[in-house]
């Protein structure tokens, strides 16, 4: 019994770590740049496929792929904001209108990225094996790669949290998310901060993709599910709240793990039930105001 609990909890934390990463990413994009990025999951997919390709074709260690994939994925997000979303914001002055239009653009982006990947890699599942041996932990047995993924997700989340709270840029990002106009008065370059936030969002998704490829099979259509989960977590945690996304990510991972233990096919259903219940009780999410 105790072993089962440990298994379910660790499994939930692993999923939760991934959820936390992708949700913090989405939260950056929505909270600061006001873009509900429906193509978020495609960056997860890109991270996963880059890693798979680098590992199977060139034998590069998947962990090293985090460092290799991070800069180009960040730059891709940054450039997308600079070329598309910033322009969109300049022509749509009304913020409600911008949010709607930006979401439509990100829908388009989702199809573009997904279809390019489909052309390149096809639709069949891909995978590789990495650190697939098992280790014992408190009497329960886990595969090493899953524990590694958990450790990595926790470290990246923590580093990101420290970055937001301690660095000059991190503070500028938080200030901009709380009052963009006032932030601009103090010399914070809002357009640049927004592009950086969009890039960071893509980056966190990309890292999550690298990690996912170590423990699951991947396919070019995998993005959408994660986008939905990230949206659920971001709403759950309070729109734009980074701590909310962190807590919400782990909470949803744990709940998902428990539900999956009882009845695997109910996992996504459970997520929706939770979010509906929560929104009825706390319309602004766990940490929302």
């Amino acid at each position: 019994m105790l072993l089962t609990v440990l298994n379910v909890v660790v499994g939930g934390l692993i999923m939760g770590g991934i959820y936390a990463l992708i949700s913090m990413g989405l939260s950056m994009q929505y909270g600061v740049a006001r873009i509900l990025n429906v193509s978020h999951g495609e960056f997860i997919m890109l991270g996963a496929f880059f890693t798979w390709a680098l590992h199977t074709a060139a034998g590069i260690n998947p962990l090293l792929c985090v460092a290799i994939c991070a800069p180009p994925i960040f730059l891709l997000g940054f450039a997308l904001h600079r070329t598309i979303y910033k322009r969109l914001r300049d022509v749509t002055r009304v913020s409600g209108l911008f949010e709607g239009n930006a979401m439509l653009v990100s829908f388009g982006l989702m199809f573009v990225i997904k279809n390019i990947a489909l052309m390149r890699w096809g639709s069949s599942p891909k995978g590789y094996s990495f650190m697939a041996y098992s280790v014992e932990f408190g009497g329960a047995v886990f595969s090493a790669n899953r524990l590694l993924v958990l450790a990595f997700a926790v470290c990246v989340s923590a580093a990101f949290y420290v970055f937001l709270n301690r660095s000059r840029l991190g503070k500028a990002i938080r200030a901009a998310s709380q009052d963009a106009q006032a932030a601009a008065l103090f010399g914070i370059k809002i357009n640049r901060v927004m592009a950086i936030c969009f890039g960071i969002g893509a980056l966190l998704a990309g890292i999550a993709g690298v990690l996912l490829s170590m423990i699951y099979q991947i396919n070019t259509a995998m993005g959408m599910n994660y986008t939905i989960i990230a949206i659920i977590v971001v709403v759950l945690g309070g729109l734009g709240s980074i701590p909310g996304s962190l807590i919400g990510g782990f909470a949803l991972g744990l709940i998902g793990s428990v539900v999956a233990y009882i009845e695997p096919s109910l996992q996504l259903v459970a997520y929706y039930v939770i979010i509906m219940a929560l929104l009825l009780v706390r319309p602004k999410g766990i940490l929302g105001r």
Partner: protein
Amino acid sequence: MLKVKGLNVAYGGVQALWDVSIEAGEGEIVALLGANGAGKTTLLNAITGVIPALSGEAEFEGRRIDGMKSAELTEWGIAYLPEGGRLFPDMTIRENLEMGAFPRRMWRERAKRLRDVYAMFPKLREREKQLARTMSGGEQQMLAMGRGMMSNPRLCLFDELSYGLAPIMVDEVFGIVRSLRERGITVLMVEQNAYQTLELADRAYVLENGRVTLGGTSAELLGDDYVRKSYLGL
């Protein structure tokens, strides 16, 4: 020395400021009085280039400031406290203060700046870890002033510092403005609270429907029949 010459500003097709010219000498407290919608905030925004002017200019210590970027403005020694404080609600007192020294060169010296500001506002130091949104209205206004002081400005533009404050807090806030004058800082303050403001300021202008209709020393305005009737309710 702040010199504003012939500013005209319009929103869409509607003109909000007409040929506004005002001045503030070094270490002077100059007040800008006017009813709601007179154009006071618009004037401060035009001076700082937050909104572009149709024509006219603003210069401070010989440099044109209306077209400057915010970071340049801060570095040139100008602090603008917008209406309503505009603190960062989910940041701590200390973090809010730090943002006042955001331009890179100041950021490096923010520890020293923080010490100076804490000396001016000891209450802020005691609570530096508290979130801004949990402070009372008066404390928030203190924090907004402290944040403005972080860049060690020579010119402060204040938009309705006393708005929504209890009388005792207004006294405290105005006391701080007075202490700025002692440090040689030039102050241009927008207020609706005419009587107390005129007691504090050296000079004042009256803005009505986007035009400067009166200007003079505070003593002159306090003695002016029109001001007494329309703004002091006497």
